[in-house]
């Protein structure tokens, strides 16, 4: 901090610090804090209280009936007292119903149903699969772009990669929907070739398979995998590749021993980004499966917020996802032996 003041002077230094603090506060601490706070409390379910109140009023009505038919003053007074007591109870419960007390605890996290937990685990596994597939697809591509001979080839490859990203993500997903749909492009071609019978609903149901989501996701997030890899691969001294070849190494060994170790930070960043994006992706599974291919966890979170109207539960789900993703980042960094410093580069 002292060096900051020395470098920029007191006024500018303080301004920079303030901007950094605001950044951290507004973009990290406040939203995340709000989410975690929300996930740590719940209000007792309204349904039960309402039932209790209903029961009390039923009881009161019965007691009133009993009281009106009773001639013994002492007994009548007893009923009246009971009614008054129930009325007090009901009033108290009614107050609770309109403004239920918050209860703090971890119950939101432990209350996840077995089905939801299954979806959670499956989403993580799917996201890992998407990441692995994207890595397999993108590594050769990144290698070709980064080590392309001649600047023109590199430009062509880069433009070919970036152009699809000028189109809105939703449109790109819908495009894949059209390609894979029952009467989509692929089935259409197959039908035209006479390989499937569209008239009798003999199409291939691509969209009911998780791989349709995988495909759209890889397509959607390819750039986030490719660019970090290209960046690190571009810094590789080509002489090292030639040296390895000159020393008799096969292409496979050159990749394994020279190129991939060099590209590790880029691979780690690409995997982290792709995993985070696919584990949290809502639009791609929602559009591609249309409810037919099984939910992803992000869809559950959405429903908790906007359909069950249970923001606490939704927050708890979201925080769980965040924790797992963070753990994934740390594992990846450990696995690839890269530190934050390498990634920042």
């Amino acid at each position, binding site marked *: 901090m002292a060096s900051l003041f020395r470098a920029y002077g007191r006024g500018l230094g303080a301004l920079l610090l303030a901007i950094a603090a605001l950044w951290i506060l507004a973009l990290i601490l406040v939203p995340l804090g709000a989410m975690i706070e929300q996930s740590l409390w719940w209000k007792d379910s309204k349904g039960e209280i309402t039932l209790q109140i209903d029961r009390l009023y039923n009881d009161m009505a019965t007691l009133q009936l009993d009281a009106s038919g009773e001639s013994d003053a002492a007994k009548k007074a007893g009923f009246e007292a009971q009614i008054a007591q129930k009325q007090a109870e009901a009033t108290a419960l009614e107050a609770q119903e309109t403004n239920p007390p918050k209860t703090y605890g971890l119950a939101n996290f432990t209350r996840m149903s077995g089905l939801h937990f299954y979806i959670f685990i499956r989403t993580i596994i799917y996201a890992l699969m998407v990441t692995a597939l994207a890595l397999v697809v993108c590594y050769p591509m990144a290698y070709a772009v980064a080590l392309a001979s001649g600047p023109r080839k590199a430009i062509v490859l880069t433009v070919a990669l970036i152009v699809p990203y000028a189109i809105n993500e939703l449109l790109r997903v819908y495009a894949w929907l059209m390609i894979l749909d029952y009467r989509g492009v692929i089935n259409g071609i197959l039908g035209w070739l006479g390989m499937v019978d569209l008239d009798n609903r003999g199409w291939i149901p691509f969209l009911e398979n998780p791989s349709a989501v995988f495909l759209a996701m890889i397509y959607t997030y390819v750039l986030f995998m490719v660019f970090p890899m290209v960046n690190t691969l571009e810094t590789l*001294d080509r*002489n*090292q590749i*030639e*040296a*390895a*070849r*000159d*020393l*008799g*190494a*096969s292409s496979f*060994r050159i990749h394994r*021993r*020279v190129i991939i*170790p*060099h590209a590790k930070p880029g691979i780690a960043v690409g995997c982290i980004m792709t995993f985070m994006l696919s584990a949290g992706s809502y639009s791609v599974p929602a559009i591609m499966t249309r409810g037919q291919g099984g939910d992803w966890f992000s869809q559950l979170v959405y429903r908790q917020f906007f359909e069950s109207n249970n923001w606490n539960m939704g927050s708890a789900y979201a925080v769980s996802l965040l924790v797992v993703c963070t753990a994934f980042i740390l594992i990846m960094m450990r696995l690839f032996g890269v530190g934050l410093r390498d990634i920042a580069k």
Partner: protein
Amino acid sequence: MRGKDVRLDQVSIRFGDAVAVQPLNLTIEAGEFFSILGPSGCGKTTILRTVSGFIEPTIGRVLIGGEDMAGKGPNERPTALIFQNLALFPLMSVAENVAFGLEARGVSKAERLKRAEELLSLVALTGYGDKKPSDLSGGQRQRVAIARALAVEPSVLLLDEPLSALDLKLRQHMRAELRAIQKRVGITFIYITHDQGEALAMSDRVAVMSRGRLEQVAAPDTLYAEPATPFVATFVGEQNVIRGTLRRISNGAASVDTPLGPIEGREVGTPAIGAPVLVMVRPERVTLGADRDNRIPVTLKARHLEGPSVNLECVADGQTLTVTLANGPAMRDLPNDLVLGFGRDDALVYAEGALANG
């Protein structure tokens, strides 16, 4: 390890329309320390990459040990290349670097680490195996690169200006070291450089290249004393170049008319009588005094003290002539008007041709 001879048979290399190497024949003997010397862009690196197999010649054949190398990749040739920037693998330890070629050949780990240790001791780096290349000094990295190349037991070691990144002191030390290593392992070294000092100091023979053509192939002493072309004469060492017209030749002796007066010299090649010629005189062959075959009165312009020697910058008829003399008491107070003298054997007379520096 045993050296093999390398033969370039009518080799020519083109990149598109650009001719990088004009058709040339060159034979490098087995076990020879052979340098290819030339300014950057003269095609010397292209030749090296052709021998190592990264480039196929457009026409002609490359033969190593009598065997045609056509269609063989760099990993199939009995050559090893040391890159200008060394291209050590930064993420591997020194021992892994040295053992990489053996690893690629499927040698077991214990075996190759043992071999790496032997090679490291050959280049005086015993015990450095566990370090990373980045922990070593420039000269040590240099030696790791040599050990790594030697590990695959090449018959021909190709070196692409590997000393250019080192500072002067280290460079001079490494010259001697390279030469000693070459003598010890006895294989053929082909050394690419633009530094004539390196080429002269280390080589058995030197080829001088310019614009894709071989200018001269000769032993260092011959190259310096008897340069075959004006380019070689001016590229290797310093020269005073005096332009003139050839008046007479008899028996190798040439008489030239120059603006500085007539000069008696020795013809190189076959300049025609009456044609424009270049007279070349090395600064260290010139003396002060009038008792020589050729005499040129000059004005002393500047005196540069080098330590053991003194360079005198003289002017005659608008042309600068440089003289290198041994330092001594007589060099302290020189008169402004001097007479430079040199023998007729010291002046080489060439037909007009391209010079090394424009």
